[in-house]
């Protein structure tokens, strides 16, 4: 980590996810941006973490269908096993 104290880098490192999620106040965001401009190690941490989040979020589009067999089994199972519990209430 370049011209900064390690403590400064660690403080920034701790807040990277909150920064990516826009959960920090304005002055803290500015501090992080300023630090990242001068510190290539922290800038790399920030950009690789940001892309990790984007990649992970992109996978939420991948939705597998539930098999028709399981769907039917599920409804039958609920019908046979849970009805008495509801009726008791």
């Amino acid at each position: 980590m370049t011209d900064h104290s390690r403590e400064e880098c660690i403080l920034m490192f701790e807040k990277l996810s909150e920064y990516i999620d826009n959960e920090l106040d304005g002055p803290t965001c500015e501090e992080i941006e300023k630090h990242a401009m001068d510190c290539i190690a922290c800038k790399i941490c920030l950009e690789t973490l940001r892309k990790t989040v984007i990649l992970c979020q992109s996978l939420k589009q991948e939705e597998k269908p539930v098999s028709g067999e399981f769907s039917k089994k599920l409804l039958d199972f609920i019908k046979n096993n849970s009805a008495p519990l509801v009726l008791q209430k």
Partner: protein
Amino acid sequence: MQNCLNPKIKHDDDYELIAKINSGKTELFHELVRRYEKKLYNFGLRMCGNVQDAEDMVQDSFINVFSYLKDFRYETKFKNWLYHIATNACLKKKRKSKHAPERELSLEEFLPKEGDEIPVRIPEWAYLPLERLLNEELSSVIRNGILAIPEKYRLVLVLRDMEGFSTAETARILNLTAENIKVRLHRARLFLKERIKVYFQND
């Protein structure tokens, strides 16, 4: 089962259906299953990594929902209440199957070590557009990377980054503080980042 989630929700598309089921039209429960089974099944796949465990989790969750629906107090979105039940079903399932060993993730293990060679530029994968980057091989690395994250951290990452819950909603679903959610999410993401980094280093 207490409805301890968000007390400020005023309306939810599922309320009317739940009211009908609770008034005795239990045959309408299949509509509630139809609305959420796919979502819950995919949540199960992301958490457990295999079809059998995901199906078991969905089944256990709906059995619990059906059993406790009378206690639903219309103070939170039904979806959030459902995920509260589903995460508990997931945790029980994993305890039984003794899948990935649970361990704490510390921030220190992800910090660049003093004396490490300082990289000079941002790696290409961090700035390439998604459409040039994402393929089946990388998707598989990410899916396996997520499954390798210790469970309590993985649960937060899946709820926040894949299921789309906010920090506050995730905190309520898991009965944790928002601060705790942020800490776990950050460590889970750092864990996954290392997996992706290694993949591109070996590419």
